């Protein structure tokens, strides 16, 4: 069976601040391919140890988390055919997290017992605290799950990027995160799980990253641009890029795991930082498009990212609510400052979701009933949250964005 994904790549780089302070890299990442029958299942994982004094073994915790994720996926893939999407969505929501969590707890306790300090201190999972984000890439779908402040971004054929999953309630500034060391937080995992079938609208690439990457960017728009640039890098170039990100940015450890779709040109040396333009790709672009069939041909036509987003959401209405929920803070900000809408609409090519939210009403002609209702519901909630208790609406609140 052909596989629609190129072999992925995963890198972790120690943060500039950690290196200066003589601390270890507390991030870990992994990319592996598992043979499932005659198909390949690819796994990408990133884990981020908390690093504070209470979490002194979190570098071991994150490495163990990656290993446990791989083992759990391997075991489940021997039991369930990849063609059974419904089962795999349930596995991503419940069974896989449970296995990883149980396995991680047992493994870190085993690790603790090997340490000299175990003779004088009691074991606590807190010492190993870390986040975990994973992506599965199957022949007919991709899915993700995890806990904590990792981010997953899709890069489309035209180079535009869209945030697909982030920790709810995280604004990029909070230092608090969900963690494997917490008592079984099933809801936290289930809220991050999703499974998407592959089709013509599927992303060209997926970028899974720890929070150090996003926190190194001035804004979310910069982060999305960075994801578009990162998929052009491989090997030493990618490692160098991560070094640059941490040294010029947050100083935190940084990890990325990247999946590229077949038909998307593999990264080439010396192309770092140059956006790949299929329309300018000449013979190479045409050859690859031909190989990729209709999907590749479609990529030659640069789509309107906003129209594409609307189309995708209307075709998969179950994605509407979770997608919009990712931007609750943006709804709230627009209620308080309606003038932001102009700026957001101007950035539709890099942030189509922001543009959709900012210009929701003006796009009603392209939209569908489910999306309109979803937007309406989020606006109502944002206005209700902005309304002082027992008081009238703020004078600046818009009736529409």
């Amino acid at each position, binding site marked *: 069976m052909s596989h629609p994904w190129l072999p992925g790549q995963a890198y972790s780089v120690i943060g*500039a*601040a950690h290196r200066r302070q003589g601390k270890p890299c507390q991030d870990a990442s992994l990319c592996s391919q598992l043979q499932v029958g005659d198909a390949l299942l690819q796994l990408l994982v990133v884990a*981020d140890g*908390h*690093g*504070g*004094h*209470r*979490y002194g073994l979190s570098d071991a915790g994150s490495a163990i988390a990656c290993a446990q994720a791989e083992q759990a996926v391997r075991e489940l893939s021997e039991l369930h055919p990849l063609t059974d999407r419904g089962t795999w969505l349930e596995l991503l929501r419940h069974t896989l997290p449970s296995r990883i969590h149980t396995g991680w707890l047992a493994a870190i306790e085993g690790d603790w017992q090997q340490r000299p300090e175990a003779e004088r201190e009691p074991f606590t999972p*807190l010492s190993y*605290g870390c*986040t975990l984000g994973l992506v599965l890439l199957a022949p007919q779908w991709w899915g993700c799950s995890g806990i904590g*402040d990792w981010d997953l971004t899709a890069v489309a054929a035209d180079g535009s990027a869209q945030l697909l999953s982030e920790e709810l309630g995280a*604004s*990029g*500034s*909070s*230092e*608090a*995160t*969900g*963690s494997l*060391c*917490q008592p079984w937080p099933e809801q936290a995992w289930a809220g991050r799980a999703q499974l998407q079938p592959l089709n013509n609208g599927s992303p060209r690439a997926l970028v899974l990253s720890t*929070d150090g990457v996003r*926190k*190194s*960017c*001035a*804004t*979310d728009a*910069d982060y999305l*641009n*960075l994801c578009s*640039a990162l998929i052009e890098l491989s090997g030493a*170039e990618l490692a*160098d*890029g991560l070094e*640059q*990100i941490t040294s*010029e*940015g*947050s*100083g*935190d450890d940084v990890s990325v795991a990247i999946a590229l779709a077949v038909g998307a040109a593999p990264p080439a040396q010396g192309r*770092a*930082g*140059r*956006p790949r333009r299929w329309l300018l790709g000449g013979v190479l672009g045409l050859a690859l498009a031909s190989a990729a069939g209709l999907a590749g041909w479609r990529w030659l036509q640069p789509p309107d990212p906003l129209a594409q987003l609307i189309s995708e959401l209307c075709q998969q209405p179950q994605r509407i609510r979770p997608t919009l929920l990712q931007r609750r*803070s943006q709804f709230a*900000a627009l209620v*308080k*400052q309606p003038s932001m809408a102009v700026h957001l609409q101007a950035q539709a090519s890099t942030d189509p979701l922001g543009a959709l939210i900012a210009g929701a009403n003006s796009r009603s002609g392209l939209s569908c009933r489910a999306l309109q209702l979803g937007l309406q519901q989020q606006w109502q909630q944002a206005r209700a949250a902005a309304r002082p208790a027992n008081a009238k609406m703020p004078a600046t609140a818009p009736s529409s964005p």
Partner: protein
Amino acid sequence: MAFPNVRLSNRPLHFIYLCDCSGSMAAQGKMQALNQAIRQSLPGMAEVARQNPEARVLVRAVRFADQAAWHLAEPTPVQQLQWRDLEAGGITAMGEALNLVAEVLQSPPMEERALPPVLVLISDGQPTDDFDAGLARLMRLPWAQKAVRLAIAMGHDADLEVLQQFIGPEPSGAGKSPRRPLQASNATTLAQYIQWASTAVVGAASMPASRVTPAPAADRPNPSDSVGNIPLPDLPPTLLDPSVDVGPLVW
């Protein structure tokens, strides 16, 4: 190598002084001591900023007396800061000062990627305006909730209850804690606390380690524990330990 169209950036760390400039601050050299303490702390603060290039330390100051006003309105890199002396006179519009700070802790103008800000409230008396309303407005903001909030009481007339409300829930147990108002009863102690806030606290806030999301208050054995976003460093040894009432009491 560069990433085109990507602004990589260190994270701004906003440090805001809220300084009581009421008439009582003119007595016993308190105003002079505060100006001196802040001025003397700046080189140490700049050095901490230099050691933590991942944070961009930006200082502002609010003065409050009959009214509250920005004394240093622009977020100023600590390396460029030249402290202008505050002057005392008037009453204590502390609530209005909190309102002023609330205006700048909204997003925008707060940057998406800013580090939790550090707010240092310094007072020798009791608020004469609606402190509760100012505090309520401030604490509705996520940035204020995440902020490291410290309070320094100058002398024995300071309203410790009000300062504790600004900081947050009082920690369990007795003794000295940065989550209680720091009591400065002379110029030396004041200088030590200001120095601590502008160096040790700024250092801790510059590179915060991530931590586990705390359980809801109802699920914690002591709801006041572990609510701060940044683990605070130990307090400096001072001439006057608030838990042991000895030392050269001046104010």
